[in-house]
C-alpha cells in the first residue's frame, strides 16, 4: 500500500473531528472521498499531510510511519496537496507559484513548468500575472500545477470544483487522466457525488468523522450512498 491510516483521530481543542479512520490508497489508484459539509474530509487530508500532527503509526507512507512528521517533511516524501480554497501565494506570480511547488522537491519526474503549461495552456499566457489576479478556475489550475511540480507519488485534492462554473469544472477534470497517466495516486475530495463516481476507482463516504461506506462505483447504489451521506434511509 502506498498510504494507510490506522485508527486516525483528530480534534480541534475539545472537539473531536475524526474517530478512528482506516483508509488505504494503492499505488496509482484514484480514490474519491465524499461527504457532507463538516464530515471531516479536510481534517483527514490535513492529518495525512502533517498540518495536524498525530501518533506516528496512525499514518503510514510506503511502509514508514509518518503521522508525527511536520508538513514540510511529509511533502518532501512525495505527498502533495491542493488545499481547500486553492491558497495561492498573493505575493507570487503565477509562474512563481508553480516554481515554488517544485523548489524543495522537484527533479526527477515528468512534471515541470513546460508540462504544466501544456496541461493548462492558459497559465502560460498568464504566467507573469499575480496568482490571485486570475479567475477561480485558473487559480485552481495553478494550485494543481503547483502540487504537480514536486512530482509526488500521491496527490491530495480538496474540493477542486468548489465554487466553479460547470464548464470550468469539466476543463479541470479533463486534466485528471493525464495526471494519472504519470503513475501517481490521486485522492480527490468531492461534494459532487456523480462526478466522484465517474472518475474514481474507489469511493469512500464520510459522515461526522467516520467512514460510513466504501466501495467501487460499480458496487455502490444510490440508496446506500444516500444513507451513508446523510445518515438516514433513502
Amino acid at each position: 500500500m502506498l498510504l494507510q491510516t490506522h485508527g486516525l483521530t483528530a480534534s480541534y481543542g475539545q472537539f473531536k473531528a475524526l474517530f478512528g479512520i482506516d483508509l488505504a490508497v494503492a499505488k496509482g489508484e484514484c480514490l474519491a472521498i465524499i461527504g457532507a459539509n463538516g464530515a471531516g474530509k479536510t481534517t483527514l487530508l490535513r492529518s495525512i499531510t502533517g498540518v495536524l500532527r498525530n501518533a506516528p503509526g496512525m499514518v503510514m507512507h510506503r511502509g514508514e510511519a509518518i503521522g508525527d512528521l511536520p508538513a514540510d517533511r511529509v511533502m518532501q516524501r512525495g505527498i502533495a496537496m491542493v488545499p481547500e480554497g486553492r491558497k495561492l501565494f498573493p505575493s507570487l506570480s503565477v509562474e512563481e507559484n508553480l516554481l515554488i511547488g517544485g523548489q524543495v522537491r522537484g527533479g526527477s519526474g515528468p512534471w515541470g513548468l513546460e508540462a504544466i503549461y501544456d496541461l493548462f495552456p492558459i497559465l502560460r499566457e498568464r504566467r507573469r500575472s499575480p496568482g490571485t489576479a486570475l479567475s477561480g478556475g485558473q487559480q485552481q489550475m495553478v494550485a494543481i500545477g503547483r502540487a504537480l511540480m514536486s512530482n509526488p507519488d500521491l496527490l491530495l485534492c480538496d474540493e477542486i470544483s468548489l465554487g466553479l462554473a460547470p464548464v470550468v469544472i469539466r476543463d479541470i477534470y479533463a486534466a485528471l487522466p493525464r495526471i494519472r497517466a504519470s503513475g501517481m495516486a490521486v485522492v480527490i475530495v468531492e461534494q459532487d457525488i456523480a462526478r466522484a463516481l465517474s472518475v474514481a476507482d474507489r469511493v469512500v463516504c464520510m459522515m461526522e468523522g467516520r467512514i460510513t461506506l466504501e466501495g467501487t462505483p460499480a458496487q455502490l447504489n444510490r440508496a446506500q450512498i444516500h444513507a451513508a451521506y446523510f445518515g438516514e434511509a433513502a
Partner: protein
Amino acid sequence: MIWVDTVVQGVLLGGLYALFAAGLSLVFGIMRLVNLAHGDMIVAAAFLILLLVQGLGLNPFLAALLAAPAMFAFGWLLQRFILNRVLGKDILPPLLVTFGLSVALQNGMLEAFSADSRRIPIGPLESASVSLGGITVGVMPLLTFGSAVAVIVVLNQIFYRTALGRAFRATSDDPVTASLMGINPRGIFAMATGLAMVVVTIAALYLGMRSNFDPSIGPARLIYAFEAVIIGGLGSLWGTLAGGIIIGVAQTLGAAINPEWQILAGHIAFLVVLVIRPRGLFPRALD
C-alpha cells in the same frame, strides 16, 4: 546654495538611518516580528568589529567582512532556538522576549566593555571630502549612502530573483501553505534573521566609524530605524530608504534653522507623514 547643501547632507544622513532600519524592515516584512533589540544588536556588532580591528589590526571593512558570518550565525541561532518559540498569533510574547534581549545585551556589553565611549578608527578617511558641483560632501557620508542603496538593491534582488526570496515571500504570505510546499517556515525565519544580522553588521560598521558609541545607545538608534520603517510603509525596503531620507533631511533642515531642533524636526516629520499617510508611503497591498 546653503539650502541645497543642507538637503544633500540630510539625504546622506538618511542613508545611515536606512541602514539602521533595513534589517528591522526585512524581519518585520517576513515574519511580522518587531525586534526591540535591533539597536543593541547594531551596537554589539560594532563592538565585535572594534575587537577585530584592535585585536587583529584589521582594516574596519575587512573586520566587518569577518564579523558578518558570525552575526549571521548569531541571528540564525537566536531565531531557531528562541524567537521561533514565541512567534504566533499574539504579538506580545516576541515583543517581551526582544525587550528582555535588549536589556540583557546592554548589560552584557556594559560588563564586557564598560560604559566608555568608543569609535572604530578609520584614519584620514574620516575627514576626507569631495566636491560635487559646488557642494562639498564627506566621503564617509557618501560611502554610507552608497552602502544603504547597495544593501537595499541586493536585498530586493534576493527577494524577487532567487528561490530563497520566493520562499521568503511565500512564507510571509501563508506559512501553513508554504509548509505544504516542503518549506520549513522556521528554517526560513532563521535564514531571514541571519540575513538581517548581516545587514546589522554593515549598519554597525558605519555607526562605529562615524560616531562614538557605548553600550547604552542602541534604543536611541532604534527609534530612528522604527520611524524610517513606519514612514516607508511596513515591509517595503525602498520605502525604508525613503523614510530614512525624510528623517535625515528633516533633521539637517531643523538643525540649520536652530541647532537644538535637529532631533525634534526628525520626529515632527515622522508625525506629519503619519497624519497624511497613516499606512506609510509605500504600504504593501496585502496588509
